[in-house]
């Protein structure tokens, strides 16, 4: 089922393994379903039916000019998971973690267990993870001028992957509402967070700027376990095996 229609939009979905369903959501901008596919997903697929998908505008899903706020992305998730009859497990990284959280609050009967990895709070602080975009409200006419040096050099050297990433970033940052949606996303209130009924795993990187968000969630989300792993924001890469192990144990 590589490409499915969600609310009239083409969404790239992949499935691995068999068993109780787990849906995994990646982060914005440089994320895609490959973020999970090459990290924790194969390990979880030993005992689960793991469904990963590209968020709108990302990977091989259809480009979208708007709708990167957590409510719209949670609606997309609802469409992606529409055929799953039983409540399913949900795992999200970064902005994908916020989408998972939003979904768990709004559809408590659909979510069996929830794992939130490196979700930033307040949500608008997400742009600190892509500081080259956060530094200036007014982006330079050529996005390449705002890139961190190694990526700028990779683009300039004509590397195919860098060129393609650049094109994708240019669309998301300059032609879509993504940055405005992130900046305009209201914070989750404690009352909202207290409505999460699913058992929740919170995984944060010890050296990540998002770490305080983990502490806040641990204090407010009712059935939460908080784990800090050595690593930064991109924990699925920095702590690939230990993160996969934590998720595997939590979802066992």
């Amino acid at each position, binding site marked *: 089922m590589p490409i499915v229609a969600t609310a009239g939009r083409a969404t790239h979905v992949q499935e691995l393994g068999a068993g109780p369903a787990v849906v995994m959501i990646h982060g914005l901008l440089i994320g895609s379903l490959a973020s999970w596919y090459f990290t924790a997903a194969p390990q979880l697929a030993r005992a689960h039916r793991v469904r990963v998908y590209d968020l709108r505008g990302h*990977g*091989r899903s259809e480009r979208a000019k708007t709708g990167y706020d957590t409510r719209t992305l949670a609606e997309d998730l609802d469409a992606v998971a529409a055929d799953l009859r039983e409540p399913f497990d949900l795992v999200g990284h970064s902005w994908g973690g916020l989408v998972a959280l939003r979904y768990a609050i709004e559809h408590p009967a659909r979510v069996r267990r929830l794992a939130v990895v490196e979700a930033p709070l307040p949500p608008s602080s997400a742009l600190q993870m892509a500081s080259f975009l956060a530094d200036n409200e007014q982006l330079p006419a050529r996005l390449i001028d705002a890139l961190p040096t190694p990526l700028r050099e990779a683009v300039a050297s004509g590397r195919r992957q860098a060129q393609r990433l650049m094109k994708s970033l240019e669309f998301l940052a300059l032609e879509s509402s993504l940055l405005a949606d992130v900046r305009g996303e209201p914070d989750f209130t404690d009352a909202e967070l207290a409505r999460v009924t699913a058992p929740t795993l919170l995984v944060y990187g010890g050296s990540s700027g998002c770490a305080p968000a983990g502490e806040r969630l641990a204090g407010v989300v009712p059935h939460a376990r908080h784990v800090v792993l050595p690593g930064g924001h991109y924990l699925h890469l920095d702590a690939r095996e230990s993160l996969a192990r934590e998720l595997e144990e939590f979802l066992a």
Partner: protein
Amino acid sequence: MNDSDDILRTVERLVVEVAGDELLVAGPITLTTSFNGDLELESIEFVALAEKLQQHYGGGVDFVGWISKKELDQIIALTVGELVEFIASCRS
């Protein structure tokens, strides 16, 4: 044509289906060609390639199980030869 050559040509055909034939401007894909360093496939294209391989070879080729046993740097350094060898081992 032996099994390994046959698999190599299949991998090449599927790579072109996923990422276009401009990937072959430097010459045909060989066993030492790397997916990341030489072909410069994006990770999401590699997922698409895996899907096509699975469709072509069927469930007997457990690509995801194979990947799950590899370190990230091994995946990044993966060559066409390693993939061909893996597929051949599933078929023997």
